[in-house]
């Protein structure tokens, strides 16, 4: 893995951290600001993917494969979340014909 | 990378690109001729001798036709759909090893655009992206037939992708690498993978048919039910893109099948031929062999199309989920056990 490590390390680690943080923040902002359940959901996925990116970068910098294995787990569990989440969203849509989370205020906050 | 290398890569890319376009064009011609042959007709015979210029005429027509974007369609996505379809079809060829490296002077030119260590995953990724083209196009049309076609296409593609992935896993257990270049090298001579993975190949080819939306799995564009399926609303070059993408996909999947299972550019006695023909023409002969295999597959695609009737949708899904996936898993288990026992 030597040469690959060298190449990836040509980019400073801070850049990866910064990039991931930015992507993560975009995801957070998406969750907080958007009203469409699907879009919120996609924002969450964005957050998870920024984590994946950062994990991979750390993993390569550290020369430790466990970070990349973690990425696998994140992907698998994100998939499980997708499955359940989509099912829930479809269920909501069938009951209300909308996926705007503003209609979801029958239970008061 | 030196400038010369880049130039060579660009050259290779453009050559491969043009070849795939030409092959796609002439596949349409071949399809018609073969259909005619099966149906005891003549087929295209007006444009040029034996109608050989027919694809040119078709192409010109595509350019000259009126471009219609329906009023209710989502304009941007309506254009993106076909563009994506053809783009994904075109970039798949990047990792296919077309032949052994050609040595001119002291410069070694690999006949492969790039040999990355996740080649197979790259192909899968590109193929998966292909469904977006269909899906976006069908959805953007805002036409009921298109939408239904698009959904069918999506649903069918993803269903068969699982069994495709599973069938590849058995192959990977044999090869131990994801690089297509390496897989091709391993099949030197007659050590073709199909000998070790006959079931895997069978599964793969079925899935390849489904992935390219070819008959008997062409439900997304099934004329009798859906008019034109996802491309009902398309005209002019955008329609052309969809049709083109289908043929390019067919070409690429044939190439992948040939590389993965049928030895790629390898053929029995290639060492002898290589010595005989020298460092330039030896590899190029391998490339020629590869193309022969590809053409055979393309012919097979067409043969099937004009022989076997279309599946019903439930049959299609049943085949994909209830037959292919268990078979693929069984294949993995079998391969695993055999390899472990033989070791």
């Amino acid at each position, binding site marked *: 893995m030597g040469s*690959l490590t060298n*190449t*990836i390390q040509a980019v400073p680690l801070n850049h990866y951290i910064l990039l991931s943080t930015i992507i993560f923040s975009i995801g957070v902002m998406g969750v907080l600001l958007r009203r469409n359940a699907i879009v919120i959901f996609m924002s969450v996925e964005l957050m998870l993917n920024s984590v994946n990116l950062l994990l991979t970068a750390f993993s390569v910098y550290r020369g430790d494969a466990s970070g990349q294995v973690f990425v*696998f787990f994140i992907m698998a569990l994100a*998939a*499980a979340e997708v*499955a359940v989440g*989509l*099912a829930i969203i*479809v269920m909501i849509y069938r009951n209300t014909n909308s996926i705007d989370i503003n209609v979801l205020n029958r239970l008061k906050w | 990378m030196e400038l010369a290398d880049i130039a060579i*890569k660009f050259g290779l*890319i*453009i050559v491969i*690109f043009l070849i795939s376009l030409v092959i796609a064009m002439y596949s349409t011609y071949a399809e018609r001729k073969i259909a005619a042959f099966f149906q005891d007709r003549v087929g295209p015979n007006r444009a040029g001798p034996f109608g050989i210029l027919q694809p040119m005429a078709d192409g010109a027509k*595509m350019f000259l*036709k009126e*471009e*219609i*974007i*329906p*009023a*209710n*369609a989502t304009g941007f996505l309506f254009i993106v759909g076909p*563009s994506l379809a*053809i*783009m994904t079809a*075109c970039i798949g060829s*990047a990792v296919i090893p077309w032949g052994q490296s050609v040595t001119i002077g002291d410069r070694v030119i690999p006949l492969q*655009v*790039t040999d*990355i*260590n*996740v080649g197979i*995953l790259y192909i899968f990724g590109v193929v998966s992206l292909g469904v977006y083209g269909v899906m976006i196009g069908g*959805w953007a049309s*805002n*036409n*009921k037939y*298109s939408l239904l076609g698009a*959904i069918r296409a*999506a*649903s069918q593609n*993803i269903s068969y*992708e*699982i069994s495709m*992935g599973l069938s590849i896993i058995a192959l*990977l*257990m044999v090869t131990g*690498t*994801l690089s297509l270049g390496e897989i091709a090298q391993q099949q030197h001579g007659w050590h073709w993978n199909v000998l070790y993975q006959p079931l895997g190949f069978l599964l793969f080819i079925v899935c390849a048919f489904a992935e390219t939306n070819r008959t008997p799995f062409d439900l997304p564009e099934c004329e009798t039910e859906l*008019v034109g399926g996802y491309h*009902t*609303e398309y005209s002019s*070059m955008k329609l052309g893109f969809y049709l083109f993408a289908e043929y390019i996909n067919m070409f690429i999947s044939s190439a992948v099948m040939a590389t993965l299972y049928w030895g790629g550019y390898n053929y029995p006695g290639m060492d002898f031929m290589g010595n005989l023909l020298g460092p330039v023409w030896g590899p190029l002969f391998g490339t020629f062999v590869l193309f022969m295999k590809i053409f055979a597959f393309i012919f097979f695609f067409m043969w099937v199309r004009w022989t076997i009737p279309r599946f019903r949708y439930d049959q299609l*899904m*049943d085949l994909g989920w209830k037959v292919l996936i268990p078979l693929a*898993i069984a294949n993995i288990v079998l391969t*695993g*056990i055999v390899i*472990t026992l033989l070791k």
Partner: protein
Amino acid sequence: MELQSLPVNYLPIIFQMLVALGFVITTMFVTHKIGPKRVTGDKLTPFESGIEVIGNARTPMSIKYFLVAILFVLFDVEVIFMYPWAVNFRDLGKDGMIEMFIFIGTLLLGFIYIIKKGALDWD
């Protein structure tokens, strides 16, 4: 000996994408320019076998398609786990094989369950 991939190996792929993109854009542009334009209202309505268009096409569709999509996501991701295993199959040996077979077995149990449950029946 494992093949090494450098970022530079991916450069040709970007080249190829650029070539494809160029091709698409040029062709689109050219057809757009040279094709005739005679727009009429009827021409722009969605094709519906010649009868009046009723409603929007984007209505809810059968839940079966969602089900297939969700199942795909699940199974495809599980398949991902097998790739690293398959590539390193010979190194992992018998233990690795048994472990993965347990995994496959679990997967298969779930698979049989959904089939029995009728999740994949298209009636």
